[in-house]
């Protein structure tokens, strides 16, 4: 039994890894690539399900070997996997989303010449995510963590012909990487304390060690988590990452990688609760992020970017659960929201991606009324938005309420500052979330007569020139990006989407969306299974008041939308403000301010390398030449001068000999 669990756990990671390598080898062969990638994800799902099943039905050894321990003297590095309920349930969730995304990609990128590379990267990403989830060793976590980042880079920059995609990819990787530097130090501190990188040993050993070190370690880790999970102040890369193909966004930038930080902190929760300063820091970060991102989300002129900001906000929610949950409650609420968010956010992304294909763009203006024209999307999107807003009985409601419960417990039991911070910001976020969900729904269902005429014309046009546009997409230079250029809002960055509106969606993609939608509806029931160690702990008063808040938000946004001819509540803000929202309030400037001194320093270094260090080397040559010229002048070739030297030499040698010998 235990062996089969070990094997399954290994297969979970290996299957997509092998799929990635095989996929690269057959990258030119589309059907083979599709088969391999889907099979990889499917095998992982099956193996993950087996692990999940086995855990609850029999004894198993949680430590699963991988490549064997490394011989490093005093440092123990067992490199084992850790299989338990937490990891198993997350594995299944990730595998579901992964499979769905693979299926969806097959349709979404069916005319992309780099489909094979794309799905191979996704497979590699899945493997890395599984590694993070199953990791029982800090180093394995770090490996998965960083490989995910690299895959994110590759996938955001998938369309590397597009300058904006390249920029976004570079930015995403750099920002997360820089945050990860602190993460690495945090890991090193954690490992140093107990001279091992085994997570179980770390959890067992740290309670006896100085709290200050623990806090330092967690503060470092939090920076890394904030980077990967796109929390303030590292959040700005995520909206830009929407340059990547939508399936990638659904998988990486909604469901999995950005939530990995939550999982990691949940994994270390037993010692994380020991460090109040770190928890307070996390609470503050998440509070700022959840509220700020929700506000920005409301004002986005691009719905995909709106989803990105909403992701920031939701991730902040799950993290905040970890910041406030009392030790007795555990990491359950955060993980629960991770799972539910994975489902409904992936659903939303895929659905929006589908719609974007149909309407050839993700800008609010383009999508306006999209659902009306494409009613097959009405249900998935509605489910997704409702779940996002936290309307019962959808999964979002359940998970959010459990977070609320955890915060409440914190306030009542511990009464710590972080509990209050989270509670208050949670309330604000509920309103804002409902507001932007409402806005999105209204935009999608709105249709003015004038728009309809335009739409018909443009659709007709696009269909007549469909072949040309296909060619153009690949040959013409991409439209310049707007975000980094002088602050003038141009077209939303993710505007150009592949036009496969003429092609019917593949059944696999349809099934994947359906499955996600189903899970978003019924996923809330998971809380009643023993799969997640969360007691259903709903504070009915809070739940009711949050529902009230949602209702208020719904009504007020409807009013605002009605006041605009476009049906977009955000237009209420005015074009200039929307531009500001689109730029994410110009946080980019901070990054530029941080990076540009580094580049200046680099210039100084190059100059110093040449004019200081190397010049001192060259100066020896000059000195040699000079000495040579001087001694050549001294060599007059006059014998009488030489005799002077000779006798002078006698004196020098004689005096030095007599005095020094």
């Amino acid at each position, binding site marked *: 039994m235990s062996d089969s669990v070990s094997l399954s756990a290994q297969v979970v990671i290996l299957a997509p890894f092998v799929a990635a390598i095989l996929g690269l080898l057959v990258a030119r062969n589309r059907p083979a690539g599709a088969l391999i990638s889907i099979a990889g994800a499917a095998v992982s799902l099956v193996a993950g399900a087996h692990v999940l099943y086995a855990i609850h039905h029999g004894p198993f050894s949680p430590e699963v070997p991988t490549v064997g321990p490394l011989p490093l003297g005093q440092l123990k590095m067992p490199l084992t996997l850790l299989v338990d309920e937490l990891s198993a349930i997350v594995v299944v969730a990730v595998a579901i989303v992964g499979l769905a995304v693979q299926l969806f990609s097959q349709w979404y990128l069916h005319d992309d010449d780099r489909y094979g590379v794309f799905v191979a990267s996704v497979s590699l990403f899945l493997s890395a995510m599984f590694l993070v989830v199953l990791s029982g060793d800090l180093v394995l976590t770090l490996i998965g963590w960083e490989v995910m980042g690299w895959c994110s880079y590759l996938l955001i920059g998938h369309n590397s012909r597009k300058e904006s995609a390249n920029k976004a990819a570079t930015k995403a990787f750099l920002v997360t990487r820089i945050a990860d530097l602190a993460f690495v130090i945090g890991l090193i501190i954690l490992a140093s304390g107990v001279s091992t990188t085994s997570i179980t040993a770390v959890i067992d050993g740290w309670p006896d060690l100085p709290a200050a070190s623990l806090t330092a370690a967690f503060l470092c880790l939090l920076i890394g988590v904030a980077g990967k999970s796109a929390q303030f102040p590292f959040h700005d890369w995520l909206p830009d990452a929407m340059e990547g193909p939508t399936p990638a966004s659904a998988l990486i930038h909604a469901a999995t990688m950005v939530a990995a930080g939550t999982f990691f902190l949940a994994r270390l929760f037993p010692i994380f609760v020991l460090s109040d300063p770190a928890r307070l820091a996390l609470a503050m970060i998440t509070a700022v992020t959840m509220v700020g991102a929700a506000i920005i989300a409301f004002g986005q002129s691009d719905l995909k970017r709106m989803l990105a900001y909403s992701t920031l906000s939701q991730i902040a929610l799950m993290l905040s659960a970890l910041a406030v949950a009392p030790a007795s409650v555990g990491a359950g609420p955060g993980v629960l929201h991770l799972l539910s968010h994975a489902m409904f956010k992936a659903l939303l992304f895929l659905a929006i991606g589908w719609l974007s294909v149909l309407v050839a763009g993700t800008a609010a203006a383009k999508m306006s009324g999209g659902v009306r024209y494409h009613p097959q999307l009405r249900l998935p999107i509605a489910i997704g938005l409702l779940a996002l807003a936290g309307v019962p009985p959808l999964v979002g409601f359940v998970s959010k309420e459990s977070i609320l419960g955890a915060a409440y417990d914190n306030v009542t039991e511990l009464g710590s500052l972080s509990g209050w911070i989270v509670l208050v910001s949670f309330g604000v976020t509920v309103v804002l979330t409902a507001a932007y969900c409402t806005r999105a729904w209204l935009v999608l269902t709105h249709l003015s007569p004038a728009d309809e005429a335009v739409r018909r014309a443009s659709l007709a046009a696009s269909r007549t020139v469909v072949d040309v546009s296909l060619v153009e997409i690949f040959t013409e230079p991409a439209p310049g990006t707007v975000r980094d250029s002088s602050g003038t809002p141009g077209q939303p960055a993710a505007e150009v989407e592949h036009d496969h509106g003429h092609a019917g969606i593949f059944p696999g993609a349809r099934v994947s969306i359906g499955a996600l939608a189903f899970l978003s509806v019924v996923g809330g029931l998971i809380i009643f299974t023993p799969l997640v160690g969360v007691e259903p702990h709903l504070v009915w008063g809070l739940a009711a008041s949050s529902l009230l808040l949602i209702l208020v938000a719904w009504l007020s946004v409807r009013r605002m939308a009605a006041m605009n001819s476009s049906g977009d509540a955000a237009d209420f803000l005015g074009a200039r403000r929307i531009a500001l929202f689109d730029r994410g309030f110009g946080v980019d400037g901070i990054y530029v301010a941080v990076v540009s001194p580094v580049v200046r320093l680099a210039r100084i270094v190059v100059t110093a390398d040449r004019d200081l260090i190397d010049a001192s080397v060259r100066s020896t040559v000059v000195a*040699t030449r000079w*000495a*040579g*010229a001087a*001694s*050549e002048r001294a*060599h007059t*070739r006059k*014998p009488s*001068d*030489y*005799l002077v*030297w*000779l*006798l*002078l*030499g*006698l004196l*020098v*040698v*004689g005096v*030095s*000999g*007599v005095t*020094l*010998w």
Partner: protein
Amino acid sequence: MSQAVVSVNAGLLLPVLAPAAGAAIILVTDVVVQHLRRTHYVIALLSLLVGAAATVAGLGLGRVAGEARRTLCLPDGGQCMYVADSVTSTLQLAALLTAALTLLLSWPDDKLESPGGTAVIVSLVLAATAGATAVAGARDLGTWLVALELATLPTVALVALRGARSAISGAVALLTAALVSFGLLALAAGLWYTATGSGFLTPVAALAMVGDPTRRPILVLAVVVAIAGIGFKLSLVPFHAWTPEAYDGAPLPIAAFLAGVSKIAALAALLVMIRAIAPLGAPPLAAIAIVSAVSMTLGNIMALRQNGVIRLLAWSTVAQAGWVVLPLAAVSSSAVHASGAYLLAYVLATLLAFAVIAALVQIRGAARARDLAQYRGLLGDHPILASALALALLSLAGLPPGILGLVAKVAALRPVVDSELWLLAVIAAFNAVLGVAVYLRWLLVVISTSDPAAKVPAPAVPDGVSPVAATVARVHPATLVAVGFTAVALVVTSLSPQTLVGMLGI
């Protein structure tokens, strides 16, 4: 009063007697039969080889400390004036073979024709060689002084006898330095005698002085003045200035002789004195350290600026002389061996370089063979000669494949390090770099592809006939023998340095 008459073992003295006798025979022959040329060379070579054969018995002696063959000893078991141990024998062998090789190089050289004819040249070479071998065995002040002068004075004439203006200049530079230096040597001998009261240059004599501490400064002064006097012959800065003049002015084989036999004689003389004072437990010799450091540095710096290969080799000699005496800064028996080993490696490599130049003189003419820039593309034109030259240069630079030079460097640095003369060692390290720059500068020219621009104006030649091969003369077989012998010796000793180093004993 006792009849203090020494016993004589002529067999032991053969390394000295053979070339001396050869010189005498040649002079007599010349009186009898005039205008002989080849005969003189044959006699000379024979006498040198006989002398060389006589040294073989002494090689590798001294594995047991103090083991040596002695003669000219005072009757009542006293001291000996001639001691042939391994160091002596090795230096003698080196001197004799070097002399033979320089004779091989000069064999076909008509320019050496002089008023006295070949006989004068050859007998002068033999006499100087005899001086060199004699000084190696000398253990008394008289032999030491006379033999040194015997090794020096003929070289002045040999340089001058080329007759060219530059030769006279070189001879004058050499002469003045030699005269003054001999004066210093005489003073050194006088001081030694005054300090020790003995005419012997032996540890016994030096130790006799120990009881009288007031005389110690005199002994010290004797040693340092001797260093100054011998420094001239070794081309140590600041006693070096004659070197480029004399090398450049002298006929090529004589330059090789100056670079080889003269240096052996000088070092042999220095070693005699150093070995005499070594048992005193002397601290490091600052005088040698200074001279060595300055020599290396100045020699390398100047060699870097030379555009003529002979002058370059002359300055390289100056630098290498610094390396030769480097270990002697630490006055010890191992330093003596190291110094000897370095000298042998240097002489071998330098001889090969001179031999290659001599061959090139015959092929390309003196002007081209002496101009560094004309070595461009040598590797393509004369691969074998160029390879031999490369080997010689790399040995001088102390880089593999010239492992002999590398080992010599190791040997030379070791006593310095053992005595913890860190500053000197670091200076030596920097000079190793400068030295590499010197020799690689030459080597770079050699291995460069010949300048295509220079080849364009060459006259059209029929296909299949190399323009070079069509015009050049052949290398004289004697020169080829010299090149081959030294090259093979260098390769063999590079693979197994023990064959060379081991001769000096342990």
